[in-house]
């Protein structure tokens, strides 16, 4: 057993306390029969876990969990219950036997494995000693981005991130295919009348939206220095537009940012990302090898002081590569989040209209 540095104990206690909260929330989600309550509890669950992630030094993940788990997921879930209604009925205990057995099996296996896992925080565990440590040592030299998570995400495992962007793109396509077309998804719902009375809301929204967009850009470009990056920025950017839709009505937003355009932007984002990869290839490197993003002859012309590090003019390609692909991620994520929002919100308007008509 390793010697425990004193600071761990504080962290440990906070972590355990947060985990207990998570357990309580999860238990409440299992028990509740109200869907709305379940969704709110899920949102809380995400937020608490984001806090826990900060305690665990996973700032980037915490940020993402907060904007995606507590933000986007909650919005989508709320949209979904608006469109489906219905409450959960309590199933008889017989219906719970098989699920309980399945879960007990999985849980038993997990706990069996947990006994063999290294202690929390063990710096010598295989997980922390092998590749993870190698990144910490190599990334500052090879990539140059201070945020190692970004360096790994965008460069070492840039291909994973390309796949992930493709997943998001696929989700956008999926939601569009389900909800984005057809008679139920009229692209131009009637102008909302509710917002007209709320002058304060409108004015403050007009003020806030550019600020949110600006913050998104900050998160975007600050990604290789601190927590943040294309995903978080994309979601925040989408949030700005969603706010617009909430305050000024979906119709106005759809006029300003048409769904078709949004879907195209999602595709363009992935295209940009993959294009960077192909560009590297055309210049003689491997796919996504940003060192070859620019032709060597071109790169030689760049003065080393431009990046403040005469030794590593080399990083120029890595910097711009990461910047470009993060831009691709931003475009795809923002556009997809909007597509999803449009899909659910467009249906919502339709559903409400039907409800009133009926």
């Amino acid at each position, binding site marked *: 057993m390793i010697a425990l540095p004193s600071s761990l104990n504080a962290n440990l206690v906070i972590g355990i306390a947060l985990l207990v909260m998570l357990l309580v929330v999860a238990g409440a989600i299992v028990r509740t029969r109200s869907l709305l309550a379940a969704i709110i509890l899920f949102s809380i669950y995400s937020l608490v876990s984001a806090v826990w992630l900060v305690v665990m030094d996973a700032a980037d993940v915490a940020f993402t969990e907060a904007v995606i788990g507590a933000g986007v997921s909650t919005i989508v879930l709320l949209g979904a219950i608006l469109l489906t209604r219905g409450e959960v009925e309590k199933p008889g205990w017989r219906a719970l036997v098989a699920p309980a057995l399945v879960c007990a099996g999985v849980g038993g296996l997990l706990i069996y494995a947990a*006994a063999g896992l290294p202690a929390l925080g063990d710096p010598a565990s*295989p997980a*922390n000693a092998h590749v993870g440590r190698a990144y910490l040592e190599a990334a500052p030299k090879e990539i140059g981005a201070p945020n190692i998570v970004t360096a790994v995400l965008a460069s070492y495992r840039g*291909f*994973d991130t390309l*796949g992930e962007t493709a997943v998001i793109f696929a989700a956008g396509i999926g939601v569009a*295919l389900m909800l984005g077309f*057809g008679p139920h998804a009229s692209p131009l719902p009637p102008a909302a009348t509710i917002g007209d009375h709320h002058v304060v809301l409108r004015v403050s929204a007009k003020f806030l939206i550019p600020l949110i967009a600006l913050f998104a850009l900050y998160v975007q470009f600050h990604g290789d220095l601190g927590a943040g990056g294309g995903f978080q920025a994309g979601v925040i950017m989408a949030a700005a537009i969603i706010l617009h839709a909430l305050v000024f009505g979906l119709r106005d937003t759809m006029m300003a940012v048409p769904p078709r355009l949004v879907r195209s932007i999602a595709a363009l984002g992935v295209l940009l990302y993959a294009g960077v*990869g192909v560009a590297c290839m055309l210049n003689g490197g491997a796919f*996504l090898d940003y060192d070859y993003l620019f032709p060597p002859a071109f790169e030689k012309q760049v003065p080393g002081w431009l990046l403040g590090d005469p030794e590593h003019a080399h990083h120029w390609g890595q910097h711009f590569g990461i910047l470009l692909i993060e831009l691709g991620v931003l475009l795809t994520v923002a556009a997809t989040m909007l597509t999803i929002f449009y899909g659910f919100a467009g249906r919502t308007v339709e559903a409400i209209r039907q409800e009133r008509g009926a």
Partner: protein
Amino acid sequence: MISFETLYAAAPALTAHAPVLMVAGPLIAACVAALSPTARTSWMISVTGSMFAAWMALAITGEVARHGAVDYYIGGFAPPLGIAFYIDGLGAMMALLVSSAGVMASIYSGHSLAAEVRAEKHTHVQAAFLLCQAGLLGLVSTGDAFNAFVFLEVSSIGAYALVAIGEKRDRRALPAAFNYLIMGTIGATLYVIGIGFLYAATGTLNMADLSARLATLGDSSVVQAGFAFIVVGLGIKAAMFPLHGWLPGAYSFGPSLIVIFLAATATKTSIYLMARFIFDVFPDGAAFGRNFIAWVLAPLAATAAIVCSIQATFEREIRRILAFSSVAQVGLILLGLSLATILGASAGLFYLMAHALMKMTLFMAVGGLAISLPARRLDDFAGVARDAPWSATAFAAGALSLAGAPLTLGFLAKWRLLEAALNAGQIWIAATVAIASLLTLLYVGRMLEAIFFRSAPAGAPRAVEAPVGVLAPVLVLAGLNIWFGLDASLPEQLAGAGAKALLAGAP
């Protein structure tokens, strides 16, 4: 005789990048398809993208045959830090299979999609299809365990939505797709948990590195649990009995484009990944691996082969018959692999290819008939052979192959499976194969009897022969079923190379 080595050789510069181009090609094509203005252009892009991938797969296969396994370091980072592609004989075989299935499906979709999905959605449908294809191709070429998960999801998310749009014909597509999504996601998540445990035990995600490090570790609860989670997770994705619940619905109600593609590739790629883990990543020393094969994998596979064949016999809807048959055939493929000999693995892989070919033929032929015939049940297809003789003939070729009639690829596949089982001294596996073949004959007989020998009831809607664009790929595939039945040297070499790659050290 077609020699494996003489397969296409591309320019060296292209061959060097072929592994990643094979994945990036369809991915880029997906974006372009989504951006394209009309349904027709998106179809052309889809065909082009798939063909490009197939071209690259062919180049890789040739390269692997000439020089052995291909490595490709993405981003220029050597593993275990970077993500590396690793394509050996097995990966090349799978890549060729997936990409050729993609070409066939995309050509076929030109006419079939119009009957099944509104034209405004076509650009997105083609985009999702291409993403699905890119995902599967990435899955079979990556050498990184976590990267495999990402590509599994790239392919799955597209597939879920594509199955769901089958609702235009049959609203039951929606719950089926939802079920597919839930099961698929549970499977993928279990896989991730398993990878997490392996990572905890070894600190790496690269499969080759994992294998090397696992060999130095003893059995630990973490490794065992990791193995269990990976196998169960992939088992769900591979529709391994009894985790196959999602498959019949998804295959029955989805639109033809995705169903033919999934039927030919989706479960197969998961089987591929599972085989990778069982035979490559977990070293032979891990005793529980052997026990697992002997006491869990083989019995379950045998049960699937028997039970699901029986279920198929009692189904009434033609696509459900084919779907249950798929689960049964997955069992046979796994039986071959579970022999854990070169002969067994190569028989299993041979069967895998044969099954992809015949199921694709069958689903395509049924899809072609369904364009004009709003029918689902077997009885509705009574006497179709008279109205649509070409489609019916193609169906018959696929069905005979499925039943293992001599002179078809299916027969050779069964032959090889039997041979491998007997060679390994596993009489009970040979017996299972024989009995499953007999059961297959029952439901194939039912289908052929309805289509060829029964006459349509008076007043029933009549089928019209499928359009040429649909018929051409179907007939090509039907012809291949027969051609390979007479000269199976090509699939045999692919399977042989795959098996050798899979069981590098085994007898």
